[in-house]
């Protein structure tokens, strides 16, 4: 039986890991595991609901506690903004300060990857990518802000490319063997290198182990305020033995699966055509040649601002698979129609009303509610297993 059921009304819920240790799971974790399960069973309806769920999660009030290394020391991040050299990065313990330093890193680069600076840089990259994705559903996003965030991402990418850590990270992602995350963040990263894509899927032991550990030993520092705990799904693994590659995989829930890239883009198009204009970083409209070596961050970010590119030709096999699902049903506008009475609801409010089991639950569409109940049920099963 399920020892403790996840209650999605409450963002933070005690449950237990395999060793019987108490861990705190957030809605983000639950959603991530749900996402994985849904993709595994190719349950598209469930999947798109989770995607909407994730999108509605805290937008401008993004609390990147869950992005930060799961410690309490977020104030240490970039204290002076000075760049540390790699020479002293190896001696630095992990930012957490609680976890032991990496026991044995295979190479200097990997050691550098686990240094405090690079972990900080990584989390900044994650934070920026998340910010680019979370956007107003109803109002056009702020172009200036998006440009500045995209430039920051580009800057980090350039630096990581110079360090050589970028290559390692994308290779590890390729090896992660996880279903592709629809979040554009990974798509953005995917498109950087073709070498990694074609390099094959030789699994690297440390990353696989890291992932497993990551999902079970996560501990996220949350503020006491319940409101702020409804956050994005990404969480970082505690163990610093992970390379930043697997860290990234853990952060986004899953690494890319290269051969599924096309499919996922197609899926994305289907159910997110309506709101692709709103979402800053939908990447489908962009250049589909993801083998290009050039950084294509800007394309995902700014493609939507001007021309809405036509949807890519759908994969016939995929079409057949999902022919029974009506994508327009999960159009965000449809979902939100029932809540037009309060058009200025913030994303948190929207999330709460969607997730609430009380009388304020989504009333416009009962099937939507039943899907949410189904989702909750699925979550319970997942977490219990």
């Amino acid at each position, binding site marked *: 039986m399920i020892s403790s059921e996840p209650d999605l009304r409450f963002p933070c819920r005690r449950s237990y890991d395999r060793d019987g240790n108490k861990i705190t799971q957030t809605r983000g974790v639950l959603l991530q595991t749900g996402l994985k399960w849904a993709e595994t069973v190719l349950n598209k309806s469930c999947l798109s609901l989770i995607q909407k769920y994730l999108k509605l999660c805290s937008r*401008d009030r993004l609390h990147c506690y869950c992005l930060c290394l799961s410690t309490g020391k*977020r104030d240490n991040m970039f204290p002076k903004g000075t760049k540390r050299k790699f020479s002293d990065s190896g001696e630095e313990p992990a930012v957490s300060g609680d976890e032991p330093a990496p026991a044995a890193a295979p190479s200097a680069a990997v050691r550098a990857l686990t240094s405090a600076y690079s972990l900080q840089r990584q989390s900044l990259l994650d934070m920026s990518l998340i910010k680019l994705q979370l956007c107003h559903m109803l109002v*056009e996003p*702020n*172009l200036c802000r998006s*440009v500045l965030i995209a430039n920051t991402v580009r800057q980090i990418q350039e630096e990581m490319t110079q360090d050589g850590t970028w290559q390692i990270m994308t290779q590890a992602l390729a090896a992660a063997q996880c279903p592709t995350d629809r979040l554009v963040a990974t798509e953005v990263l995917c498109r950087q290198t073709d070498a990694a894509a074609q390099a094959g899927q030789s699994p690297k032991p440390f990353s696989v182990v890291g992932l497993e550990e990551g999902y079970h030993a996560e501990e996220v520092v949350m503020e006491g305020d319940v409101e702020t705990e409804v956050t994005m799904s990404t969480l970082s693994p505690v163990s610093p033995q992970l390379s930043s590659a697997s860290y990234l995989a853990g952060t986004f829930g899953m690494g890319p699966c290269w051969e599924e890239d096309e499919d996922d883009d197609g899926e994305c198009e289907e159910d997110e055509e309506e709101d692709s204009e709103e979402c800053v970083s939908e990447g489908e409209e962009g250049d589909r040649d993801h083998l290009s070596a050039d950084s294509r961050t*800007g394309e995902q970010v700014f493609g939507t601002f*001007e021309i809405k590119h036509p949807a890519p030709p759908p994969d016939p096999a995929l079409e057949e698979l999902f022919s029974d699902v009506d994508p327009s049903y999960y159009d965000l506008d449809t979902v939100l129609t029932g809540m037009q009475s309060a058009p200025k609801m913030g994303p948190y409010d929207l999330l709460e009303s969607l997730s609430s089991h009380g009388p304020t639950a989504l009333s416009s569409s009962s099937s939507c509610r039943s899907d949410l109940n189904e989702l909750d049920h699925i979550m319970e099963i997942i977490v219990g297993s």
Partner: protein
Amino acid sequence: MAGAGGGTSDVQWCFSQVKGAIDDDVAEADIISTVEFNHSGELLATGDKGGRVVIFQQEPESKNQPQCRGEYNVYSTFQSHEPEFDYLKSLEIEEKINKIRWLPQNAAQFLLSTNDKTIKLWKISERDKRPEGYNLKEEDGRYRDLNTVTTLRVPIFRPMDLMVEASPRRVFANAHTYHINSISVNSDCETYLSADDLRINLWNLEITDRSFNIVDIKPANMEELTEVITAAEFHPNQCNTFVYSSSKGTIRLCDMRASALCDKHAKQFEEPEDPNNRSFFSEIISSISDVKFSHSGRYMMTRDYLSVKIWDLNMESRPVETYQVHEYLRSKLCSLYENDCIFDKFECCWNGNDSVVMTGSYNNFFRMFDRVYRQDVTLEASRENSKPRSVLKPRKVSTGGKRKKDEISVDSLDFNKKILHTAWHPLDNIIAVATTNNLYIFQEKLN
């Protein structure tokens, strides 16, 4: 008193008035989004997120209290912009008033107000007389029975209670794809510019269906977009000159006589980056949020996230003066990036004779920098200091470990209480400071 900013540099500021709701529960529509004095300083206009414009008028100085300048009371309130929906893009267009600019004074008052997409010209006129004695109508407006009309008379004007009307005279729409961030009236009083993220348009105040595009920085390929326009303003005296600032910390001065499209700037003002302070946030904090010419037209002031810079228009290589607004935030940039505060757009303003500049900060603090005496002061706009004519006490933020009494530590600052909009009376030492939903008016202490 001609706005002597800091004659003896011992200017003391007193609380004068506060406008807006008292309770802490802030309705989103009441959030003030712009503040602007008119050219005489008699009128003070505010715009809010709900699309409303509220205009305050200064009472004439009373003979009883010659030491106290007149108070500002509500003169007119009207709904300038309504929320709209762009059906083509399935996006809402916010009705929030981004900027208000007064036109130079005529018989009636004119102002331009803009939201993200549409600029409107409003005429604010007074009516204090009404016609009486119509032949065909009764006083209450009903039509008279013609049989009862036996004589003819000429209607005459009789005084009535003052009524202030605001009527939209022009609507300048459909010219901007991106969000309008600035409007600026030209010194020729015939044209004005409107700037969005990527383009600047030149309008004639009389013509609403056409505008000239004078700056376009949109790249052919949107993937290559790395810089946006953040603010623009016409020169106060030279009607052919304007400047625009960018998110990369550059200011470009353009001369409209050179060519129709001013993509090639006449001057570019940019300060080289300090390599010691380089970080991933360097670009973000260098993004200029506001640019204002001095009244003389010799200087211009820019506001980026941490500082205010004064530029001499004749020197492009670096600013002539730099003032740190809240340098103690430099070590907190990551947290501020996390909670999006790093993207806050602070405005700045000059006093009447260009000797003092002012800008806002967090925790409802605002800062003034005296350029002549090289002094600065931090003041707070809060309800605690709202006793009439109570002198504002300078505030201090402690940066070191040891916190003195009355100082506030950086970690105790409330980043939700930000002062983004401030305005200085063009002639006197009266300032209007907008907190989230309140407007504070402070005056110089007169003895």
